[in-house]
């Protein structure tokens, strides 16, 4: 894996790993915000606290989670808000990810809805906040707390996961519990989760109000000379598509069929088509989509390409989903979030 940073750790998945439908745990991307992450824990004494505007505050052990609730699973893409940040032009400060801050996994755990039902949500509650066991180096560093609207928290899809691909969640990825918010960027997927607070007011905190903000327009777009004055929190995964084969710098042989492959993904709407261009966007051809693995999984696309002449080729890929959404040619924002502009790939054929 690529080590972007060490304290707190951020590791990126190599592109060739994304050729697997399910990203193996040992290659799954890692991203923490605060330097004091959990490095030692006794699962027997670990507790998940459900506090706030509830009839009954809960203190749940891992055993409680596994025996008092019916388990549920989802295959869902986890993708960092800043995935592909290094491809923005002009470049922006932040973790300089390529395309590898994303992974597809089978998450197993308890529906948040069921946990909140056991606690009994009081009338008038409107928000739920989530905090993990990680901390900043100094008391003044804002705690990493994210929140959801109560209706979202109760939708039956948000999961408190205790397993990732059949194994306990790796410590680097949030052992023992990770919040899974299918269809939303992974900033909401709070790792080493141990506190859930039901609130009668809208939650306010640094990581919801100041960080992870995007320009308030449908394209989430702005320009360096004209930054958007209004911002909103980043939420749904933007429709985007990438190449996983060939890789940048690869050489392709003329007159031989070459597999061209990639991924398309969004916030859960069906991917309708993925088109590829071999001439810098002048002409497009539709690729073959693999069967769906689940509405929140990525969708793999493939096509065979037999270039007839040697030279430099400029490939592009774009996806369209059932909501009629497609991808723009250009996009920029000051934080490098939610990349969705059409991906290009330079390939040499000889």
């Amino acid at each position, binding site marked *: 894996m690529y080590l972007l*940073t060490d304290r707190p750790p951020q590791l990126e998945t190599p592109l060739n790993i994304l050729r697997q439908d399910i990203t193996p745990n040992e290659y799954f991307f890692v991203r923490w915000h605060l330097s004091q992450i959990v490095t*030692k*824990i*006794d699962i*027997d004494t670990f507790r998940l606290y459900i506090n706030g505007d509830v009839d009954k505050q809960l203190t749940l052990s891992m055993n409680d989670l596994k025996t008092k609730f019916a388990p549920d699973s989802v295959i869902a893409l986890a993708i960092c808000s800043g995935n592909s940040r290094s491809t923005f032009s002009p470049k922006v400060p932040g973790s300089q990810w390529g395309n590898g801050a994303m992974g597809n996994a089978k998450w197993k755990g308890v529906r948040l809805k069921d946990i909140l039902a056991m606690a009994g949500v009081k009338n008038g509650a409107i928000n739920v906040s989530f905090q993990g066991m990680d901390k900043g*180096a100094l008391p003044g560093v*804002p705690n990493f707390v994210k929140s959801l609207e109560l209706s979202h928290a109760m939708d039956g899809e948000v999961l408190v996961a205790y397993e990732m691909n059949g194994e306990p969640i790796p410590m680097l990825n949030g052992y023992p519990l990770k919040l899974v918010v299918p269809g939303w960027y992974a900033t909401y997927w709070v790792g080493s989760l141990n506190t859930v607070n039901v609130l009668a007011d809208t939650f306010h905190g*640094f990581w919801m109000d100041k960080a992870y903000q995007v320009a308030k327009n449908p394209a989430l777009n702005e320009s360096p000379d004209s930054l958007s004055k209004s911002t909103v929190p980043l939420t749904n995964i933007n429709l985007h598509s990438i190449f996983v084969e060939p890789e940048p710098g690869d050489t392709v042989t003329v007159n031989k069929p070459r597999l061209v492959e990639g991924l398309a993904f969004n916030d859960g709407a069906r991917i309708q088509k993925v088109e590829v261009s071999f001439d810098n966007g002048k002409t497009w051809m539709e690729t073959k989509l693999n069967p769906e693995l689940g509405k929140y999984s990525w969708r793999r696309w493939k096509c065979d390409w037999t270039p007839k002449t040697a030279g430099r080729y400029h490939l592009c890929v774009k996806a369209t989903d059932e909501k009629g959404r497609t991808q723009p040619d250009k996009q920029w924002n000051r934080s490098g979030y939610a990349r969705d502009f059409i991906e290009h790939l330079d390939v040499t054929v000889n």
Partner: protein
Amino acid sequence: MPPNTFTINGSVREMNIWPENTTFPEHEGKAEFVSYCGICHSLKYISSQPDFPRKTWDAEVHKMIAKYNAPIDSVTGKKIVDYLVAIKSKP
């Protein structure tokens, strides 16, 4: 691959994170940069950035102080920005 070890002893899991070893060029302000910036995060957070103009480094250091409560006064802050500009700037 950076060295780290994971151990499981009964109900206890433990992980040892790899040591940091980023080196930086000598220049005025290096001492301030290393001691203050390294409090909350490793210095790889800076070495992994592309070159930026002064305006961007200024905004980043200001963000650390204003939003993340970094204990840096304005004199030290300027020294740190000057250092970053000296080692990682583009016009």
